[in-house]
Structure formats: structure tokens, C-alpha cells
């Protein structure tokens, strides 16, 4: 488990996302309307679509390739499709807005 500083909340648009590469894994960071920042593996379980490019609706992201929906909190694919995406723990420093990711 490593904890790392990956950026600042104001670098991510609301209902937007940014990606980053840690080792060989691409991770997508999302910022919800609630202010929450959530991190998941940037790979749709369907055909590997980059979830960071998808549309964020509430706490779900729609995959840009074929519209599967992934819950950003649990990483679960929503019915009627099935699957799971890895999630990562995110902490935000309330003072500075720094984003820490634990991998």
C-alpha cells in the first residue's frame, strides 16, 4: 500500500475527470457535484473503454464506448450489465485541496 499525492481538487472539473498512470495501471479520478473525489481503474469491464472519458451522472459514470454504467463508490457495474471495476481510496486535505490516493 502506497499513499501518494496526485494533484489538487481544483484541477478536476465538477462532473469531470482526470486520469493518471501509476505503474501500468491507469486510474480515473472523478469529481462529483457533491464535492467528493473518487478513483477507479480506468477500464470498463465490458471492452476496456476508458471510463475517464465517460459522462458522470450523480455518482455513476457511463462508459463512452457502449454506455455501461459503473457506480463510482463501489465500482460495481449497474444492472442490467454485470461486472466490477477496482476502486481506490482517496483522501482530500480540506485545507489545501490536495488529493491523496492509496494504492
Amino acid at each position, binding site marked *: 500500500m502506497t499513499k501518494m499525492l*496526485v494533484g489538487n481538487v481544483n484541477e478536476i472539473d465538477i462532473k469531470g475527470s482526470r486520469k493518471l498512470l501509476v505503474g501500468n495501471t491507469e486510474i480515473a479520478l472523478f469529481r462529483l457535484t457533491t464535492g467528493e473525489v473518487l478513483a477507479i481503474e480506468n477500464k470498463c469491464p465490458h471492452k476496456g473503454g476508458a471510463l475517464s472519458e465517460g459522462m458522470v451522472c450523480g455518482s455513476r459514470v457511463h462508459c463512452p464506448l457502449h454506455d455501461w454504467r459503473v457506480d463510482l463508490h463501489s465500482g460495481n457495474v449497474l444492472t442490467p450489465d454485470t461486472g466490477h471495476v477496482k476502486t481506490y481510496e482517496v483522501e482530500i486535505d480540506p485545507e489545501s485541496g490536495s488529493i491523496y490516493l492509496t494504492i
Partner: protein
Amino acid sequence: MSTLRKKLVMVGNGMAGVRAIEHLLKLAPEAYEITIFGAEPHPNYNRIMLSSVLAGGASMNDIIINDLEWYHSNGIRLYTGHTVTSIDTRQKKVYTDKGIESSYDELILATGSNPFMLPLPGAEKEGVIAFRDIKDTQIMQETAKTHRKALVIGGGLLGLEAARGLLHLGMEVSVVHIHEYIMERQLDEAASVMLRKELEEQGMKFLLKKQSEAILGKKRVKGLLFADGEIAEADLIVMAVGIKPNVELARKSGIEVNRGIIVNDYMETNTPGVYSVGECAEHRGIAYGLVAPLYEQGAVLAKRLAGVQTEGYAGSITSTKLKVSGVDVFSAGQFTEQPGSRALRYQDEIEGVYKKLVIKDDKLVGAVLFGDTGDGAQLFSMIKNHENIKGMEKELLLGVSSDALASPKGNRLETMADDEIICGCNGVSKGAIAEAIQSGGCTSVGAIKACTKASASCGGCKPLVEGLLQLYAGDNAVTVKEGICGCTTLGRDEIVAEIKRMELKTVKEVMNVLDWSNDEGCSKCRPSLNYYLGMLWPEEYIDEKESRFTNERYHANIQKDGTYSVVPRIYGGVTTPADLIKIAEVAAKFDVPMVKFTGGQRLDLLGVKKEDLPKMWEELDMPSGHAYGKTLRTVKTCVGSTFCRFGTQDAIGMGIRLEKAFERLNTPAKVKLAVSGCPRNCAEATIKDFGVVAIDGGWELHIGGNGGVHVRATDLLCVVKTDDEVLEWASAFLQYYRENAGWNERTAQWVERVGLDSIKQALDDREERLALKERIEATLRLTSDPWKQIVNEPELRKNFEPISQPETV
């Protein structure tokens, strides 16, 4: 032996050739003096059974078809371990590598095929083999005693059988396959996925969608490197990626060869006295790789040689079965749907049963069976016999008589077995739907759809789903009106009316006021609301880029591998050498893997990394071609009067004018225009959303065409005289479409829905046209080029880059 007999020589001692000889011996036992040369050191054996030998079901001895005694007693001279190296077709002689020569009157080439070996670097290493003959089988058996890891390249029939055999021999086996699903030549995706699961349970591993790049190791193989940089360890690599007809000998000898040795319906080559059968032969363009057709060929050849009347060979419909214990897979005929054919499917994931029947013109043309292949033979014979199966389709699929199916709906739904499939598209059974209603708490068709996917695709089973809802939920069943998406019950027109009436100005406001069930909507309603608001309030509404699809958010087309493509605007399809040089230089600088012309005469730079997009736009310094949006795409033009000897009007000039007028326009769906310079219509303007065709002294204006999934030719809107009138009508038409069509509705669908007359009527009055024109111009005045904007604004540009480099804390 009597010297009166003719001399028959056969090259190749395999399954097809020897079968032809067996047949010939029955028809004309005295006619020929037969000599057979076989490169392998064995009498003829059943190659098919090598899989069973490997999988432990048979021994080498079991698979011999004809032992040496058979050759002897039939007076056949057999040379095993002799390879025929040349044929002199004029002297009628063959020569072998061991110095034997033999003259013939009739010659059969039955040299089979060679395994196709991928030309990977390192393919010559020890431990890299094919799966074709006894030798390969023995190498696998030996290797398994001392090594552990095996890789099979190729997830087709042969590869899977090899892999199953290696598992039996105690090796760890992974199958490497280039496709995303295995046995794609024999199975559709559904059956393939079920098969893979079954094989995984037997211990097989799969590396799908993998492109092999190099074989690693010093002398002996140690691993396999893939194009994506990953490496899989291996002590043995079996390549089972295909076969190629063995035609070298024939080619060298001047016999006509294409992929295989070309034969006619009587298995005759173009060289007198030379015949060919088996995998090496190509008949009507096809070289078969299965035994059944080869046996049919052998029978025809035998008759020919025996001088018996025959109709000749007309080609075969083939069927295949995977010979792996524990899984039953069968496929026959044309099992994928093609235009004009329809399919019936039955899928039971619990029992692991899948059936698919493909029907064309009331005849069964193909079938795929998984799990229960009991009906295979019957279905295959119906396919071969072209039987008419009208009225018994469902019976064939379900094994239920048509009487039972014809009984009244309620009754039938009640008595229907739980595992019967209701939704064929998604393989949802009656049981699954009943469960969703009874314990899943679904009380509407929408809820059942969301929970089980039943009726989520073609919707054909919706009546049945409704019936089941009535049956199990009774009075609790609610009929919910379906709106533009699952978040609302309101339709497009109601929403637009409410937005106008209450002057709603943001997506969020609309959702709040109109009681959306999902607080932030979904990928269907968000983009449509964003469009309606922008269309209704062009001056005030601030476009919500987060409510646009990926393509429109990043102003490039997302491709399946996550890269993007860049299409600069080229007005009317006309460019200059200087611009071409610029495009070429940028493409080279950013290592664009492919440059192609789009369907609309523009240049497409494909395979661009997202990070590179803004830099490329900056260097191109050209406007966006909007090849990605719900907007004006291109105006295709022909040469017109500028150069063409038929052209009566300036098609190019007209096209450029239209493209400049409407570029960047937001529309309900993409919009394509075209202008042709005369009625020859080389720009294909009559399958565009708005098509302009020059006639002598004027222009014909066409609307509502589409060349996509549902091809639709345009309807003629009117004929006008001047260029300005073309602009006026195009503006009015496009704005009227913007204001009245549903989001995502192409003009072709829209024209069909509202009717040509209603559109003609709306545009008929000049004052109306000018008002529409004024509104579209007001909207267009507010647009700007998105590429430039992103290049210049760091706040937008940042989203193309990965977030800051991670630092460990």
C-alpha cells in the same frame, strides 16, 4: 499383375486420397495398378483422432485406418517415408526424394495441407510445433513428461483440441487468441462465451485479443511476447492458427494453382491425367479443411476413374463439432445472420444450453448448438436438403409442438416451462422474469427491463413480458408511460413545451421542476436537454459540456482503443497543396498510424493520443471538421461545371458556400449535405439530409436522405433558380428541423414521422422561411471554433493531459 491395367499413382497417403482409392477398388477392382507415395512413415491413419490420442481417448494403434496388410492384399504398392519431389507431366512420371521414379497414366494429388506457422521471430526454436500429424502428437506427449507450461496459439477447433489434450497430459495450458472470442468461425458470441466458461472450468486459461509478436528463449522456447508488451512463459508452443493447401509440388510442375490446386466438378486439374482431392484441392474457390467434403470429393473421383456416370461434385455445406469431452458444440451452415436471414435463439445459462437457428426464405440455413447437440444431425440434414420449415421454426428450436405454442397467451404463459426463453435477444427466460416480479419487486415493464434486460434490445418480446407481469403481479402491475429516457415519463414535445412555458434555463432546473427520477439524469436525457435548451435560448444558454458525449467534449472521435481521430475542415472537399503538406507534416510529427479519406471526402488522421490532440490542432491551425458531433459534418461536392464536361452549375462553389454558412451548427443529429453539378449526381446528393442537384438553369433541393443503417433516398422539396434561394431554403429547412425533431433523430426518420407535406407546408411561405433563416443565423453568429478555443484556454486544455505526476508521501 496384368500389364493391361492402367497405372494409377497417388501422391499423399492421407484421409481423402485413400478414401478415393477404397471407393475405386469397389467400383473397378481390376482397372488400375496402384502406387501410393506418402511422406509420413506410417500407413494411412485417421488424423481426426490425433485429438483423441492426445486427450487420452485412443492410442496410436487405434487410429490406423488401413494397415499394411490392406495395401498388400489389394495389390497397392506403398512407399511410406517417400516424398514426391517432382512430376514430369509430359513424360507422365513422378520422382521421389529417395530416387524412385514411377510412371503413370493417371495421377492423383492428395497432398493435404500444411499447418500455417506464424512468421514470428523465434518460430524456429525448439519446442515450437504445429498440431498436424503423429510426429507433433508424439512431441507433445514427450514434452509433457519434462515440462509444465504450454501455450496454444489459436482458439479455433484445432487449438482447443490441442489445449484439451495438453491439459490431459498434465500441462498448464493457456490458449492465445487474436479475437475477443474463441471459435469465431464456427460460433456466435453467445455460444463462444459459454464454451469458454466451460473450458475454463476444465482448467484451460485464455489470453484473448492478443497479438503474438515474438518467441523468446535461447535454443528452446521460454516464452511468448505480445504486441502489448506482455510476456507469457512457455516451455511448449503449439501453433494452431490455420492451414494452407500443400500445392508446392503441383505449382512446380506447372499445374494450375490458386490457393489450392484448381479442380473442376470431376476433380480434374487443368493438366490432362492429373486429378486432385482433399485439402490440397480448390473447388469453385473453396479449399475444404474437414473430412466430410473430402470424402464426397473422393467418391466423385473414384467414379470418374472407374468410368461410372456421375453428376460431379457441387461443393459442400459443412458442419463441425468440437471433440472435447464434457462440452458439446455443434455448428453447421451459415450460422451468422446476413441480410435477408433471421435467427431464433434459445439460451439457458443455468443448464448451459444454447441453440440458434438461422432461417432464410423459410429454410434453415445454419445452426449453432451448445450444451445439447442431440438435434445436430437432424438440423444438419434439414440444412443440406433445403427443407421448407415454415410454421415449425419454434418447434425445432424449443422441441415444443406448434399446437402448444398456438394456445391462448395467458394459458400458454402459465404452462410455459421456467427455462423457456422469453427475450431471445438477451436470453432471458420466463423463470428469470417471474423471479424479478415475484421477489425482485418489479412492477412495470421498465423495471423488468432494467433488472433482467428482457425486451431491452429489439422489443419483440414486450407483449410476452407484459403478459407475465399481469400474470404474476396482477393488480400491482403499473403501466408507466415511457418518456425520452428512464428518468422521466415526459416525451420530447412535452419537455420542450414546459421549458418554453416556464422559461427553464438550465439542465438542472429542468430536472428539478419536471420531477426527474434520477437527480443528475443519464446519458440519454442530459445531452438531449442540453440540445433543447441551446436551441430554444441561443443567446442566454451556456452550453454544458459535461452533458455532451465524449466525442463532443473532446472534439474528436473516440475510437475503440481509446485513441481519437482528427478531421480538419476542408470546405466542399477542396484543399490546397500547402494545406496537404501541413496535414502530412503534422501526421508524421505525431506518428499518426493511419491517414484515410472519410466517407465525406475529408482527411481523417486516426489513432491520435488524447494528450496530443490540442498540440495537433495548434500545429494544424485549421478549423475543426466537426466530424464527431451532432452538427453539420460535410458538404460533399462533385467537380461540377468547374472541370466536368457535363456540369451545368458550380457544384464546388455552392458546396463551399453551404459548408461555410452552416459549419459548427448544433443539430438534433448529425447532418450531411451534398451538391452535384448535374443530374448525373456524382456527389450522391440524394442520400443526404439536404441534397442539391443542379439542373439546367437551376437547382433541385432534396431532403431526408440517409446512407447509413437504413438507406433512404431523399424526397424532392422544391426546385429553385438562384444560389441565394438554395441558401434560403437550406437555412429554413435546417432550422425547422432543429426546432421540431427529437434529439438524436436523423432527418430521414423525422421526415418519415412528420410527413413530407407538413414540412413543405411549413416552409412554403416566404416570410416563414425568412424568419427561420433569421433564427438560424442568430444561432450561427454565436458559434466559434472549438479547437482554437481549447488550444487557447488552459482551463479547457488541462483535461487532455494526465493529472500531475504522482509523488509518494
